[in-house]
């Protein structure tokens, strides 16, 4: 009998070329999308919280900057604030931290992925998109190790292929390597299994 999968959270890591990639990814996600999405986008420390506003007008989902202690809810996309790490607690709430840079970055994708994998285990989808960094590779491997579902943007379709390439080398047999344009439809499929 085929094992029934369902997912409670999607974590996304993205660096250079991120704004465009996220716009394309979120544009086709429906308003009733049933799984919360948490995004780490590398950004300059003083860049403020503009990303959520920019994305909000491009999707039916509600995009907001994540706040500490916030409980993750379906229908929302949570953006990690600049200059903070975002950690997910096992009770599915957000913690923020100004701990030292990890992989030269704060926020770090690895920090998000590693804590999310502890909180959600096999009910987590991890996605690595475009970027010129190796951040996220180790974290995606941990998501895979803990039974989660791993998707990497096809490096050929990435603005910067370095980060997808690093994730592919680090992650033993990722579940899917997809062109950016195909990821949102795939997410709708994967997460529909939850509601049925």
């Amino acid at each position, binding site marked *: 009998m085929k094992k029934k999968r369902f997912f409670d959270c999607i974590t996304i890591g993205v660096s250079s070329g991120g704004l465009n990639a996220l716009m394309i990814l979120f544009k086709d996600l429906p308003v009733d999308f049933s799984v919360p999405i948490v995004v780490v986008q590398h950004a300059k420390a003083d860049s403020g919280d503009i990303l959520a506003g920019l994305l909000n007008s491009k999707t039916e989902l509600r995009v907001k900057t994540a*706040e500490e202690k916030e409980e993750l809810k379906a229908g929302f996309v949570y953006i990690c604030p600049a200059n903070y790490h975002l950690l997910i607690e096992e009770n599915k709430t957000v913690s923020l931290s100004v701990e030292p840079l990890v992989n030269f970055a704060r926020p770090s994708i690895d920090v998000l992925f590693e804590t999310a994998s502890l909180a959600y285990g*096999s009910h987590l989808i991890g996605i690595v998109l475009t970027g010129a960094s190796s951040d996220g590779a180790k974290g995606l491997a941990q998501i895979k190790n803990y039974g989660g579902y791993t998707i990497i943007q096809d490096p050929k379709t990435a603005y910067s292929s370095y980060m997808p390439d690093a994730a592919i080398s680090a992650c033993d047999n990722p579940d899917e390597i997809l062109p950016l344009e195909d990821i949102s439809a795939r997410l709708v499929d994967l997460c529909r299994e939850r509601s049925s």
Partner: protein
Amino acid sequence: MNHTKRETNVDNENIEVNLLIEAIRLKYGYDFSGYSRASLKRRIKKRLLDSGSLSISGMINNLLYEKDFFDQLLLDLSINVTEMFRDPLFFKEIRDKVIPELAKLSSVKIWHAGCSTGEEVYSMAIILKEAGIYDKCQIFATDFNQVVLEKAKQGVLSIVNLKQYTQNYQKSGGTGSFTDWYTAKYDLVKLKTTLRKNIMFADHNLATDGVFSEMDLVMCRNVLIYFDRPLQNRVFRLFTDSLTQDGFLTIGSKESIHFSGIADEYDQFSQTQKIFRKI
């Protein structure tokens, strides 16, 4: 598949973390039970990797019998990332809005709670000097970690950060030149000792200690984010009980007094920064 190996491992690890926290509390009196778990766990695991211990529970033996091991762990468990004039616009708002209010008082008491290595304490001292009210201020800078307090007392900065700090100082509305406030020798930058005159560095643990004086300004930025809600509420209560009427409370830009049980006791003093005034 109701209980996989992964889930067993995560459960065991959580038991080990709880035991470690309890061992620290029983042996040394530091209470980390109210700290946000994900970050605490990351830091414990980092120490595990660096220490060569085989497991978190193995570290319990180390910390009980080796004081040096515990001291290092304690350093890892406190987060000591700070800057001179971190978030310059916050300090600009202090200069522009809070200082004129403090200037009206005959004497001023300021508490930097969780001061770490002291960069914000000295930043504030510079602002008080430039505003000409330093001499009537008594400044308390507290942390639970003796090692960082000692460092704070030295008032020494690393030269690699100097460019950033100078920019921060300027953006914060500095009225002179940042070079007025330090002497540089080799790769170290020593802050002027005149800044230290009215600062008292002291051991105080927000998780376990109480009110120790009546304050006109409490600064505690990016400390509360590491605490769970009950501990946050405890600390907010402590600050509120420590403040005079019309006293100021400042917290980090991503911290909130909503849900804290004390929000009604404050007016929002600034539109742009997390500065509150006790009613």
